[in-house]
């Protein structure tokens, strides 16, 4: 279909837009702030059952028997599901495209419990209270097994977590449950060992980052019911409605055609809801009892029994020259996958694929990684997705090289970071568990980001000021540090998004997208893109998203893909609609199609044509004509998009800190982030993404962690015990969007949702080095650890 050029350029060549790159208010904004919008738990149905889940109290145990007779005998208890009455079907809970790159190692209700929090059974009752009380009446005979609670001792442990349970990899990748290995990735460019050994300067360092919880304020929730024709409808707080439909079908053994999944408003996800956890349970309850069923996890259950950020150990070996040229770099990653392997392989691969291409001129690169099983809570997708875990070390080793060779790190990045027109062999070598996709960077403003960030943070002045002399003898030492970052935009050649649009007789449009707005504002962003193509206000675009019966397919909200991938599908779709409008409009104006154009919700004679005063016809008139009068048809279109590449967004973070050397408490004084997300379709939303990611990143760097008892029980399973930043604790944060233009993205857009969570760990650590001359190798930077680092000779 002909693609009309809807980008107007001013005389400076900078692209000007009417609806895109505009801070338009979210289309659901007022409805959200007035409490009108509905989230999953806000839906209730007549005759609804309430579900509670019994979780394993042991980290590793075999269930010899479950006797639910006392529970069933309780007044108000309607159903109990356990391994006794649910078929044993292996699957992965990971919300990924099919066939999933995560091992099929999970059973909905297993007879082996593999972590404290694993699902023993589920009860449905007339009230939540009854369901909760019924759990205590289920008699479970556990036989405790030895547990693996240290991920550094998991590989090859005599305790095998998935022993003879039939777990297998769904795609042909390395998988060895007998050694507790859930995933393994290897890639090499050049010859690392040789280049490393030959290098005049070298070092090796280990870095640790902890478990973390997404802490979306809305807990996981799912409700299901049978519609009037007996089809199963699931309303879920999910980032992946289509994957939910497919996986529920497989696990509950219900045909896909009998399942409808609806995503209402979601109260945050950050990757935590890219997982199919509650839906199969309510689905089975409804399917069997014929009654609606609701399951809402408590905050404690969200902490232990949903998904987490993976705990990581990364080891960097770097060989370099005295001028700072890095000859050889080896990143070895050890990932704690937890009891199951969802996202184990792909997070691991991303630890390499979203870091190593940044310094693409390193000739000898090696990436090795393993994800191991432990009897601990399960890692999954979490904003950053392996990049966050790896940037802690990656951002510091660059700082180390620069410090050792007296290079300014900002200039270093300018010299060595990947530039437009360049590629990295890592793009091809590391994909989503299999080979990746070769590509060239076609848009980057990293240079400008680095300059802007240095200016906004007073980088050179402060670096000069915060010398050893300045900080000498001071109780509170100050420092500044920075890190450059990249991420990706969608998963190339795998993820697909599609859109459907139809026109209404008042000139408005229904835009139906599978794309999932989890608070990111994607409904608004996609409407803006459609508006830009059609030259009609955003109020005229009615967005329906994430309903598997009504909206076309979209893989879901992950991998920073909604703006870039779903946006391009919308742009294509709107382009088709525009063609049809123009055709009808031209016909109504009795002009050739080539002599008309779209302008502000009407079809008018084009500027260049001679019929300037031929009148115009509005969109409303066009649709009325098409509905009722002549050549009747519904103006509608559909489009799909798969991207051949994943253009990285870039960012440069500059962080100024102070550290109280008496208490070990680190305080961020100023956080500057300069961000290249291509064209920000909605700058307010893009800034908001950056700010939220930064605050989460700071919390993860300074104190977030999972503390386990010797029996594998999570001790800090409430917001109060886990720790959260409030409006009180945030430092001044400066975000500056530095636009570039990505040809392959809608109106030049890339992505922005993940990248900015990656900067805090390396930048704060580098600032700490600037302040104290010591390095932080373990996150979180708790005060006692900080003191121990300061006291080391």
């Amino acid at each position, binding site marked *: 279909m002909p693609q009309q050029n809807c980008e107007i350029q001013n005389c400076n060549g900078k692209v000007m837009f009417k609806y895109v790159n505009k801070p338009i208010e979210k289309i659901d904004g007022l409805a959200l*702030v*007035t409490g009108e919008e509905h989230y999953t738990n*806000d839906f209730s149905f007549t005759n609804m059952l309430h579900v509670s889940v019994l979780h394993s109290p042991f980290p590793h145990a075999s269930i010899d028997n479950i006797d639910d007779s006392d529970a069933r005998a309780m007044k108000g208890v309607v159903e109990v599901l356990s391994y006794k009455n649910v078929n044993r079907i292996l699957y992965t809970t990971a919300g990924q495209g099919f066939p999933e790159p995560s091992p099929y190692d999970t059973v909905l209700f297993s007879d082996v419990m593999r972590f404290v929090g694993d699902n023993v059974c589920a009860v449905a009752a007339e009230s939540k209270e009854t369901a909760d009380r019924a759990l205590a009446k289920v008699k479970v005979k556990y036989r405790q097994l030895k547990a693996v609670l240290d991920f550094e001792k998991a590989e090859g442990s005599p305790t095998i977590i998935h022993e003879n349970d039939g777990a297998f990899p769904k795609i042909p990748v390395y998988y060895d449950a007998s050694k507790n290995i859930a995933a393994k990735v290897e890639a090499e460019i050049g010859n690392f060992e040789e280049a490393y050994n030959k290098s005049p300067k070298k070092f090796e360092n280990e870095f640790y980052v902890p478990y973390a919880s997404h802490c979306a304020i809305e*807990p996981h929730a799912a409700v299901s019911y049978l519609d009037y024709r007996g089809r199963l409808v699931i309303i879920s707080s999910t980032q992946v409605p289509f994957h939910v439909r497919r996986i529920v079908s497989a696990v509950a053994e219900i045909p896909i055609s009998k399942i409808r999944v609806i995503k209402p408003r979601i109260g945050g996800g950050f990757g935590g809801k890219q997982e199919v956890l509650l839906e199969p349970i309510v689905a089975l309850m409804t399917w069997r009892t014929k009654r609606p069923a609701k399951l809402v996890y408590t*905050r404690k259950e969200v902490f232990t029994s949903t998904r987490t950020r993976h705990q990581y150990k990364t080891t960097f070996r770097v060989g370099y020259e005295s001028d700072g040229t890095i000859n050889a770099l080896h990143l070895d990653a050890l990932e704690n996958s937890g009891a199951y392997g969802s996202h184990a392989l792909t997070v691991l691969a991303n630890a390499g694929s979203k870091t190593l291409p940044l310094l693409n001129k390193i000739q000898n690169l090696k990436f090795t990684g393993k994800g191991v099983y432990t009897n601990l809570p399960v890692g999954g997708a979490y904003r950053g997705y392996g990049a966050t875990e790896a940037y802690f070390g990656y951002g510091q080793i660059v700082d180390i090289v620069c410090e050792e060779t007296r290079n300014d790190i900002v200039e270093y990045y300018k010299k060595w970071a990947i530039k437009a027109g360049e590629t990295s062999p890592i793009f091809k070598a590391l994909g989503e568990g299999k080979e990746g996709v070769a590509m060239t960077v076609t848009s980057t403003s990293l240079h400008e980001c680095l300059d802007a960030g240095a200016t906004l943070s007073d980088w050179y002045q402060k670096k000069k000021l915060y010398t050893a002399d300045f900080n000498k003898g001071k109780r509170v030492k100050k420092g500044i540090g920075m890190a450059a970052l990249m991420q990706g935009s969608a998963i190339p050649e795998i993820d697909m998004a599609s859109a459907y649009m139809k026109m209404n007789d008042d000139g408005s449009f229904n835009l139906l997208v599978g794309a999932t707005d989890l608070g990111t504002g994607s409904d608004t962003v996609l409407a803006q893109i459609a508006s830009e193509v059609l030259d009609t206000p955003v109020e005229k675009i009615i967005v329906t998203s994430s309903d598997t019966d009504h909206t076309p397919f979209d893989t879901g909200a992950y991998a920073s893909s909604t703006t870039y991938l779903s946006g391009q599908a919308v742009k294509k779709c709107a382009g088709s609609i525009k063609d049809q409008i123009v055709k009808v409009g031209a016909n109504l104006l009795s002009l050739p199609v080539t002599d008309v154009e779209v302008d502000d919700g009407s079809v008018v004679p084009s500027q260049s044509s001679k019929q300037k005063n031929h009148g115009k016809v509005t969109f409303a008139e066009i649709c009325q004509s098409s509905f009722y009068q002549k050549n009747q048809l519904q103006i509608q279109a559909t489009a799909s998009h798969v991207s051949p590449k994943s253009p990285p967004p870039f960012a440069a973070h500059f962080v100024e800190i102070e550290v109280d050397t008496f208490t070990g408490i680190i305080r961020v004084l100023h956080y500057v982030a300069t961000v290249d997300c291509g064209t920000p379709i909605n700058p307010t939303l893009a800034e*908001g993404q950056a700010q939220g990611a930064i605050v*989460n990143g700071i919390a993860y760097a300074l104190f977030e962690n999972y503390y386990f008892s010797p029996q594998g029980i999570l001790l800090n399973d409430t917001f109060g015990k886990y720790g959260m930043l409030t*409006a009180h604790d945030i430092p001044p944060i400066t975000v500056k969007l530095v636009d570039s233009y990505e040809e392959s993205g809608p109106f030049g857009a890339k992505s922005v949702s993940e990248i900015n969570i990656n900067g805090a760990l390396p930048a704060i650590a580098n600032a700490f080095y600037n302040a104290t001359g010591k390095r932080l190798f373990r996150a979180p930077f708790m005060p006692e650890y900080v003191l121990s680092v300061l006291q080391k000779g």
Partner: protein
Amino acid sequence: MKIPFSINSAVYELELQPHETLLTVLRNHGFTEVKSGCEEGECGACLVLLDEKPVNSCQVLAMSVRNKHVRTVKGIGTLYVPHVIQKAFAQRGADQCGFCSPGMVIATFSLLREHPNPTREQIAEALDGNLCRCTGYVKIIEAVEHAAAELRNTKL
């Protein structure tokens, strides 16, 4: 038992059990704008005004609310007649997923009644019981300042 409650300037006869929290009772009766985030008094998503003071409704036993007045976010402004604070939040991008927004609006409303020209410190204190994981609070604070200025201007 059925107890009369004064909610958003209207009186409702609500069915409740003696051990239930105000949050549970409100939500059971359709006041779903009051959200449940943790039920431990820590996230602030369940904030309501109780005799015009912000409290975590998950930490209030419903029976003790008799003779008191409850205001939810819809008692401050609705989709059809939004309050200046709500408009400021929506305009400034202070709402991303929106789950914390009703609680934030309530805390802001209470703050601006006492401090029409609040300092950053006062804003931070007023919001210290409202968690947000999406925004990093930056645009929320800006929205509060903007709403405060709007309210001061309209009073002139």
